Each structure stands twice: as C-alpha cells, then as structure tokens.
C-alpha cells in the first residue's frame, strides 16, 4: 500500500514539475473579453470576437512573442451583477492579465472596484459614457464617447444654418450624455433645442416619438440610440413617417452603423452622421483591417465595434510588450498612456490624462457605392478629445 502511495506521489510531483516547466516556457497571456454573446445584442459579441482574433492573426498569432488566450464571457445584456461575478471569476480563478470588451455602461461601472483592486488593465471596446474612465485608473478606452462625436456635429449644424433642433435619445447613460453634450454645445453656438425627447430603452415602436419630433417644429433631429433593434426601429420610423419630406433633417452618430445599414434600403440615402469610423474610410490601415476580418470570416462586418476590438487588442499588444508578458498593471497603464498609432479609423492617440482615445471625427453622408450603402466621409472635424471629462 505504502509503495503505491509513494509511486503516486512521485508521479504527481513529476507531473506538477512538468506542468510548471511547460508553463514557464510557453507563457500565455490571458485576456478576458466581456460582452453580450446571447440575446438581442449578441452581434456585439461576434463583432468583438472577429475584431480581436483578426488582430492577433494579423500579428502572426502571437503578440510581442507571447501566446495570447482570449477567454470570452457572456453578460447577456446590461447585467451588472452577473458581469461582476464573471469578472471576479476571471480575475481570481482564471487569473487574467487583461480585460477587454464591455458594451454596456452599467457593466463597466460594476467592475471598476474589482479592476482597481486587482490592478487589471481593462480596455473598453465599446461603452460610450464619459464617466466610465473616471471610475478606475485601470480603464482605457478605444471606442468613443458621445461628447467626443456630438460636439463637432453641433458646431457643424450651427454653422450650416440649422437653428432649431429637437433631441431624441434613449434614456440611459450614453443617451443622456448625448443629449447633454448637444444641448451644451448647440446652445453655445447660438442654436435652440426646442424639445428633448427621452425614449425608454425597451421601446420597439418609435412612431409616437417620431410624431412628436414632427410636431416639434424643429429643422433637424439629433438622435442617439444603442446599436441593434432600437437603432433599426428608429431609422425606419423616421423614414416611414415622412420626416425627411417634412424637412426635418436627420443628425445622428452611430445610427447608420455598417451592421444594419443595408437593411434600410434606399430610404437611408442622405442621412447625415458624425462618427469616428466608417468602413469606407480610404486608408491602407483600414484596407488591411478589412482584409484581416474577411480572412477570418467572409461575413464579418467592419464597423465601430469590430474596430474598437481591433484597436483595443493593439493597446493590449503594446501593454504586453511593455511588461514583457508579466502581469504588472501599473507599468502597463503607464505605457499605454503614451500610445500613438495609425488605426483603421485614422490617426489616433491615447490621452494620458483621461485614458480615452483621441481620434478624428468625420462628417458622413450615406451614399450608394457599387450597389451597397456606405457612410461616405464628407469632411473631417480633426482630432477630438472627450469633452465630457473636461468639464
């Protein structure tokens, strides 16, 4: 019996030695990706996956010479309690070195104390409320904020003789940011906001709101909705209820997102938006990005979410480089603060003070190119910072 025990013990010891040795040689960097992989916003999960994995493939399968393991966790939707449990497990059990992803603001808020305490650098691929990066010094954002894209649009509208605008936003963090940003900048430029409509996040039928917009007497409607069904529903309601014909111009940000764009049909032609990424952006970096995406999955869509993941992985890549694959949150963030690079969207850099991406915002109009609808960049507003954190 004792011989058996001794044999088992030595086997176990040998096995554990082998594992640690193996582990030391093939040092894998673990990155947890948090996003919705089920439910009505599941497309975000796929977009993140495609963008992130395409980036790693484009770098030859390793980042800074290290193997990278992406661990995906499904939050389902805005589900802060569940997100916190998942991230806690990722940090404590899976011992991830970095976190990425985050579509919804409440989910990001929920994990702030965890990443702060564990010093885990977290790159936000999508969530757009300005206040997020304030909650922890380990948040870096490669998406955008509503202030960032709204301020230049408001300035443009004022310059183009639009005096009266009605805002229609979804009643949640980014939506309220959008409304506040528009009101603040547009009134500063001399315009008036005749009405501010807030739409519940669960709205499916936008006709009542669109009728209110029509009745408001404004020259244009500035709007923000989350991507997916709300976006689609609102733009369709705008078209079907004859708002363009009634002379109310559409001013948006992410509403003509490439993911749903083709579904609008010709009714979407001419819609004006201000945003930081268009798949039609004419630059070599963008061509490379789209090629890498299509190689991974010919059906992959190049839009702000997949480019957010692509650039997010770039930042993680640089952080791995700076820390030589070891977990050192403070060193990684310090290195990330000074990053500057040519992204598929244009030239970008990380603002060292706010840890938010500074990028070009473009004015786009929807046009038909080669039988497909695209967001044609008509004008560049130049590099924009996150005005929401400046106040």
């Amino acid at each position, binding site marked *: 019996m004792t011989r058996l025990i001794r044999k088992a013990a030595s086997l176990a010891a040998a096995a554990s030695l082998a594992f640690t040795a193996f582990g030391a040689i093939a040092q894998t960097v673990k990155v947890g990706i948090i996003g919705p992989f089920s439910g009505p916003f599941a497309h975000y999960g796929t977009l993140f996956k495609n963008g992130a994995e395409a980036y790693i493939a484009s770098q030859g399968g390793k980042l800074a010479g290290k193997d990278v393991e992406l661990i995906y*966790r499904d939050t389902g939707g805005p589900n802060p309690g569940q997100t916190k*449990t998942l991230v806690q497990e990722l940090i404590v059990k899976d011992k991830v070195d970095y976190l990425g992803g985050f579509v919804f603001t*409440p989910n990001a808020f929920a994990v702030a104390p965890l990443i702060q305490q564990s010093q885990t650098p977290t790159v936000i691929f999508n969530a757009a409320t300005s206040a997020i990066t304030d909650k922890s010094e380990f948040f870096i954002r490669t998406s955008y904020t509503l202030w960032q894209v709204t301020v230049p649009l408001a300035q443009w509208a004022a310059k183009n003789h639009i005096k009266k605008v009605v805002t229609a936003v979804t009643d949640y963090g980014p939506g309220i940011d959008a409304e506040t940003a528009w009101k603040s900048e547009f009134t500063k430029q001399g315009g008036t906001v005749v009405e501010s409509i807030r739409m519940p996040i669960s709205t499916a039928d936008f006709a009542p709101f669109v009728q209110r917009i029509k009745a408001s007497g404004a020259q244009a409607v500035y709007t923000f909705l989350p991507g997916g069904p709300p976006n689609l529903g609102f733009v369709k309601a705008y078209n079907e209820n004859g708002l363009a014909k009634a002379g109310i111009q559409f001013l948006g940000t992410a509403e003509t997102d490439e993911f749903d764009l083709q579904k609008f049909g010709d009714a979407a032609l001419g819609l004006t938006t201000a945003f930081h990424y268009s798949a039609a952006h004419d630059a070599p970096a963008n061509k490379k990005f789209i090629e890498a995406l299509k190689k991974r999955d010919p059906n992959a869509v190049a839009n702000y979410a997949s480019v957010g993941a692509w650039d997010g992985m770039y930042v993680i890549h640089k952080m791995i480089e700076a820390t030589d694959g070891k977990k050192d949150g403070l060193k990684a963030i310090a290195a990330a603060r000074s990053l500057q690079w040519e992204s598929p969207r244009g030239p970008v850099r990380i603002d060292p003070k706010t840890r938010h991406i500074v990028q070009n915002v473009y004015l786009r109009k929807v046009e038909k190119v080669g039988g497909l609808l695209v967001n044609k960049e008509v004008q560049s507003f130049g590099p924009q910072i996150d005005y929401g954190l400046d106040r």
Partner: protein
Amino acid sequence: MTTSDAPTAICRAPRCAPPWRLPAIVLLIGVAAWWLMPEQLGLLTRIAFMALLVLSLDLVVGVAGLATLGHTALFGIGAYAAGIFALRVHPDPTLGLLMGTAAGAVLAAASGAFLLRYSGFTFLMLTIAVAQITASLAQKARDWTGGDDGLSGFTMAPLFGRFAFDMEGRTAALYALGVLVVGLYVARRVVDSPFGLAVRGIHENRARMAALGTPVIARLLAMYTLAGALAGAAGAVSAQTSAIVGLDSLSFAVSAEALVMLILGGAGRLHGALIGAVVFTLLHHTASSINPYHWLFVVGAALMLVVLVPPRKAWDRLRARFAFLGGKASASARETA
C-alpha cells in the same frame, strides 16, 4: 399509524424534523464549499442569495399555493433599499440588510392587501402588473436608482466592523450563506408551526379552512409578508455583495427564473427550493461558459423533462427501487404532496 404513539403520529404531511437540521446541513455544505473552492466564491454568493429568493417564493407558491410571477418586485426593492441606504445614509451591511428586509416586507404587505382579494389567473396577472409598475417607477426615479445605468458607487463597510468585503469574495460568500441559513431557519420554524399548517390548509382547501373559522386573507397576507421580507433580504445581500444594483433585479426574467428553479427542485418542502436554485445556477454557469448561445436548449429541455417525469415521482420511484437498502423508503413513497 398506531394510536399508542400519539405525539409522533401527528406528523403526516409536513415532516417534523427538528427545525435546525436543514439549516445546519446547508451551513455545513456551504462552509465546505467555501473552504474547498476559494476561486468560485462569486458563484457561491450568487447561489446563496438566489436560494434565499427561491425559498421565499416557495413560501408563497409551495406552501400558500399562490402562483406568482411578480416576486422580483420584492427582491428588487430590497436590493435598491439596501443600495440607496449604503450610498446615502450609512454603508454598514447589517443595517442595510435590515432596510432591505423591511422594504420587502412593506411592499409585500401593501401589495398583498390588494392582490390577495383575487385568486388564480387574475392573481397571477396582477402580480405581474405590480412587478412591472415597480420596475417602471424604479426606471423613472433615475435620481434615486440610477435608472438604466444602475445604482453604483457605494462601498460596503466591514461586516460587524471587522470583516472587510474583499475582492476574492470570502466575506461576501460567508455573509450570504449566513443570511441564507438564518432565513432558512425562520422559514422552517414558521412552516412547521400551527400558522404554517393553517396556510397549508388554505392551500389545500380554502373553503374548508374558512368554514373552520380561519381568517384566510389575514393568514395569507402574513405569509406573503414573511416571504417578502426574505426576498427583500436576498435582494439586499445581492446589492451589498456586488456593490451595484441594476434594473435587471426588477425584471420579469428574475420572477420567471425563480419559479423555474422552484419547480425544478420541487415546491412545498423548502429543501426543493434550495436544490432547484443550486442546480439551475450551476447549470446556467457551466452551460454559459461552454456555449452562451445554447444555454436555453438545456433549460428548456430540463423543464419539459421535469414536467413529463416529475422529480418527486422519479425520486419516489428511485427510492422504491432501492427500498431494500432502508425501511424509510416505503414510508416516504406514501408521502403526499
């Protein structure tokens, strides 16, 4: 059933096990899990407060016989009460827990006074209405609840002044477990008491109980209020251990999931609630991490299976099969609902 052992022969429908037995077993298993799986404490905490929620639902559905799909309101209001209390008044966890429990009890008493006038399908639909109205109010009161962004930014003070809520979740897990055990003890005592028997009687035959002189609505309301208190406590624990409260704690999905957990485990005997909560949460966790898309296949199939082959029947059949292992089997096979 012989007449000579009169005191023990009273126990027919509800078992007369000592009330501390089940809580003690749960405590032992919980602490063992806490000890052996220090990396899964977040999951353990979630299982604990979900079990408390399903337990409170069992009091309403299993014991009192009132099918409700609005239980989430009681859970959510406990969560928000504890969260708002921690944010604006004092971050002490035990005070917050009391607030959450009280909030749940108050809402249960207030809504119960209206709801219990109705029964059956009407009652069910009205519970849905109450829950949805509560959710709409919480969403409107953005300044208090944070609306769709959730209530965050509060940090809990150390429990009893000594045990801080650490990142690994050690304190949180034991705290949640502790609240579950206490709640379970209270539930056990109440259900096995004459009051509990009266409520069971109302479940079985309302008219007969009324003919016996039992104030039916008053008894049901008392049970509903107790269930509300426990649900509120569960909500408070969920708010305090995750330091965030989202509108999802008031969503219809919580009510539906709790009901599913209860039925999977078996309603009416309290331990079924715990089993259902544990099994469902573990299933959800494992299935979601393997493939988040196809989790609903699993739960859908499980539900259909459970209805076609009810767990109690299966359990009894299994016991009958292994009757030769112990004499208790034949007795429990005769055990009625």
